[in-house]
């Protein structure tokens, strides 16, 4: 890889994030920290039933409560905020029902907001909400996806005809022939539970409508400010330029804060209606029933294998339940779609068939959460590979090696049409075996088994979809930007101010962008100030999701920095009466390119360009603010790859799984900041571990959430988590000058499969096997027989 920058480069350096200083001092500004004059607070009355007709809502007592400004029901907001339907045109046949800020007529999940109480404080708003009397006619709840399409099951939205949101059938090659030719056919059904994001900062929004100018300013804990701006403008009937969305510090997101939520739309509508700032901060209990949920799949998989371990073909049937509405505007079909499209992609076999059904049910809406579809796809695929290896008495490492898409096969198109520029499965595997001392761990495991200790090792190879182009959402009609802009301004003092469309929720986006800009222009890191998350001033962009920050935002920053560098050198050349090519910028100094001799510094250049341009030639105009944009044009996604290894010990008496250590080797292309990448991987792995072992949204048959608090819903805590070793292979993309790809979801993509395989490896000598997630002690003990 050639150097992309002149002089000092920060690319590849673990620069400490300057922005952490304020967070470490308790001086972050999260949405709930923002206070505005005459601000009101809203609390929502939520449906206590999974499915119920609203017979009447009596707001009299709540309205009479001192301090309550308004009590509003769904009908009252219909004229303020238009409804929405969460479908995308490229998911053919997809359907969903009209959704509104507050339910009108009936509620379709326990937790759906049905009325809003606005008051002088959150406590008073809650007092008011407790005094709203709703009368319900309870309807039968649809909970189990397996029976959602049965004729006897009630249809949640009668206008749709049935409970089917989307179905898909894919065939590549000749799967029937592959299964006929197989020596062994393996079949398994996996049950993957619902879980959710549990961002430590709950969702929060503060809407400030100024009725004099008819302008709306929204402070939002969110990942995609321009998407929110567009949607608020269209659904509230405001000109786009009069809606400003500001995302300051965001306390975790992971795909939770990238969707349209009824309560947040209601908050904005209430601000328009009342002409005052209205704040909504979800409490933890309402987060559990109103944040999007994730996963909930039942996947049947069949694998056709030859005796020597060659995979010939695969069939996958995925059934996934998404709640009563497909979530706007990204839809709830992407999770299942990606599950069936990603599953075979690590391997070279061509014969593949998949079917997908996405069904409605009376549970909290499900939508995209970190690593969308990936964790399910690779848990299923890799569990099947391990099972085949075990039945054929083959080494799981060699089984994978035999079936990988290998280095000589790129560029490569997967069974389901994904394009892979260049992946590094074999190198990643070799590196993993090395850093983990895999063979040594195998020997230790075998020795301990003889002493009655059940340890297991589980591999999970994966690919990760990063850096998506417009094929992801834009082609389906969603107004979600796949391109991003970057603006860099040279201040008169010689410092740089940078604005970017990608956003920051803890990833270190602003640091990463500063590293790229500083390197491309030729200044010191500390001389670059980056601002993200303000639609009024930042260039238009998609924000941060789908591992797009570095691949798209980073490349836009690189192109902007290079352009500004060129413009600075033109000013310098005019001042020094030489050619721009004779000069270079190194750590803020204009130097002679050949000798390195300092000719000028940036503060002097800034002084002349801004305050004494009369001293420059008459026909010369300096341009020291530059904007450039970038969208991936040459491939739909920049795929990455990696492999994880989990080492566990299972207590066969109690069913508890103890995590001993976890490794990941991944390849996100050229790495901008190794420490930030490692920490993205580690955090994402722990999110995957949570799904694999602990986190479960359990519902009863009436559609009541039984695990709706942090007492009942287990999240990974420090004491149970293992040390995590991260390694890298670097295969830069050649389609972008920076060579950057994404890294945000790789950890979550592979961790559940690795843990599942490790547990099954530990249980193998006992003839037991688990196929349900989370792998609770109960699941383990049922597999072992005592339960």
């Amino acid at each position: 890889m050639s150097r992309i920058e002149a002089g000092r480069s920060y690319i590849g350096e673990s620069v400490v994030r300057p922005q952490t200083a304020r967070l470490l001092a308790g001086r972050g500004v999260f949405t709930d920290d923002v206070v505005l004059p005459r601000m009101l607070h809203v609390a929502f009355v939520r449906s206590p039933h999974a499915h119920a007709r609203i017979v009447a809502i009596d707001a009299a007592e709540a309205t009479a409560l001192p301090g309550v400004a308004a009590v509003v029901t769904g009908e009252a907001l219909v004229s303020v905020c238009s409804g929405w339907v969460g479908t995308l045109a490229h998911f053919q046949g997809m359907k969903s029902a009209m959704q509104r800020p507050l339910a009108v007529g009936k509620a379709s999940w326990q937790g759906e907001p049905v009325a809003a109480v606005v008051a002088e404080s959150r406590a008073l708003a809650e007092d008011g909400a407790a005094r709203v009397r709703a009368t319900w006619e309870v309807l039968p709840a649809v909970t189990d996806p397996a029976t959602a399409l049965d004729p006897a099951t009630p249809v949640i939205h009668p206008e749709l005809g049935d409970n089917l949101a989307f179905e898909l059938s894919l065939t590549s090659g000749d799967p029937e022939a592959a299964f006929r030719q197989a020596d062994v056919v393996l079949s398994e059904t996996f049950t993957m539970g619902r879980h959710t994001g549990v961002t430590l900062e709950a969702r929060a929004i503060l809407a400030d409508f100024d009725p004099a100018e008819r302008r709306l300013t929204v402070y939002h804990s969110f990942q995609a400010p321009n998407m929110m701006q567009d949607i608020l403008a269209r659904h509230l009937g405001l000109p786009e330029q009069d809606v400003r969305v500001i995302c300051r510090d965001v306390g975790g997101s992971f795909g939770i804060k990238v969707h349209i939520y009824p309560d947040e739309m209601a908050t904005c509508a209430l601000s328009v209606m009342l002409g005052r700032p209205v704040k909504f901060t979800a409490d933890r209990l309402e987060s559990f029933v109103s944040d999007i949920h994730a996963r909930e799949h039942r996947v049947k998989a069949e694998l056709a294998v030859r005796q020597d371990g060659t995979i010939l073909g695969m069939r996958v049937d995925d059934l996934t339940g998404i709640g009563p509405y497909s979530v706007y505007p990204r839809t709830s079909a992407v999770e299942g779609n990606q599950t069936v499209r990603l599953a075979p992609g690590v391997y070279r076999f061509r014969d593949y068939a998949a079917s997908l059904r996405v069904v409605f049910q009376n549970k909290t809406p499900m939508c995209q959460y970190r690593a969308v579809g990936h964790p399910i796809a690779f848990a299923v695929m890799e569990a099947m590979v391990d099972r085949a290896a075990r039945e054929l008495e083959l080494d799981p490492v060699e089984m994978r090696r035999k079936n990988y898409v290998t280095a000589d096969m790129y560029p490569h198109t997967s069974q389901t049409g994904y394009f892979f520029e260049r992946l590094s499965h074999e190198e990643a595997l070799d590196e993993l075996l090395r850093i983990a001392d895999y063979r040594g761990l195998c020997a230790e495991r075998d020795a301990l088994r003889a002493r009655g200790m059940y340890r297991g090792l589980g591999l999970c190879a994966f690919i990760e979809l990063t850096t998506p182009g417009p094929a992801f959402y834009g082609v389906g009609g969603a107004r979600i930007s796949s391109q991003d802009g970057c603006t860099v301004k040279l201040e008169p003092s010689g410092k740089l101010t940078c604005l970017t469309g990608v956003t920051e929720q803890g990833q270190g986006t602003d640091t990463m962008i500063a590293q790229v800009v500083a390197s491309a222009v030729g200044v010191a890191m500390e001389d670059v100030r980056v601002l993200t998350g303000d639609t009024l001033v930042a260039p238009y962009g998609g924000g941060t999701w789908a591992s797009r920050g570095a691949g798209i935002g980073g490349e836009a920053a690189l192109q902007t920095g290079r352009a500004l560098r060129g413009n600075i050198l033109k000013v310098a050349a005019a001042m020094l009466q030489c050619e721009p090519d004779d000069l270079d910028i190194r750590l803020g100094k204009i130097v002679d390119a050949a000798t390195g001799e300092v000719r000028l510094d940036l503060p002097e250049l800034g002084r002349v360009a801004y305050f004494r341009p009369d001293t420059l030639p008459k026909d010369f105009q300096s341009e020291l603010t530059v904007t450039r944009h970038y969208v991936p044009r040459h491939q739909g996604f920049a795929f990455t790859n990696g492999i994880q290894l989990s080492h566990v010990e299972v207590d066969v008496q109690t069913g508890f799984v103890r995590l001993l250590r976890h490794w990941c080797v991944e390849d996100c292309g050229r790495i901008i900041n190794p420490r930030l990448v490692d920490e993205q991987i580690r955090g994402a792995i722990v999110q995957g571990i949570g799904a694999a072992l602990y986190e479960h949204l359990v519902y009863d048959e009436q559609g009541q959430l039984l695990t709706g608090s942090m007492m009942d819903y287990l999240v990974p805590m420090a004491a149970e988590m293992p040390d995590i070793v991260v390694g890298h292979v670097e295969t830069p993309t050649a389609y972008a000058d920076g060579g950057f790809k994404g890294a945000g979801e790789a950890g979550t993509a592979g961790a559940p499969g690795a843990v599942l395989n490790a547990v099954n490896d530990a249980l193998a000598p006992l003839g037991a096997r688990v196929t349900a997630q989370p792998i609770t002690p109960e699941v383990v003990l049922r597999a072992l027989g005592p339960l």
Partner: protein
Amino acid sequence: MRSDEGDVDDTVTISLTVNGAPVRRRVEPRQSLVDFLRYELELTGSHVGCEHGVCGACSVRVDGVVVRGCLMLAVQCDGSRVETIEGVAASGEARDLQQAFAVENALQCGFCTPGMLLTAQDLLARRSNPSPEEIREALSGNYCRCTGYHAIVAAVRRTAEARGRG
């Protein structure tokens, strides 16, 4: 209930010191300590994560002991000495720990960080050279969704080692 004309005023006057400064306020008996700090005193460094004592984001020190600001009422702090992340940051007592968090990238979104810092500082005051297992145990009541905890453990270890040498 709030104090409106005709209503019974059930607010209570409390006096306490917060980050070394004397504070006197009338509060509702139902107001939690963390809500009092955030909304009455505008000390927004203490965060609200779960309001049922699990996540640790609201951790503050009361009379030298780290407590959950969501499980304690403001009225219970009458006469107490309360310290928040703002006070700890200003005094500099945990400057090395804060620096270690930055270097190890032991924070991403930063929402858990004030509670993590107070809890880790408390551990380091009690144990000069805690093992990684002891650190994980001490932090096991503080939820972090971003980091996976590995870097937080490393930052606390780094601080313990430096203080041991210091």
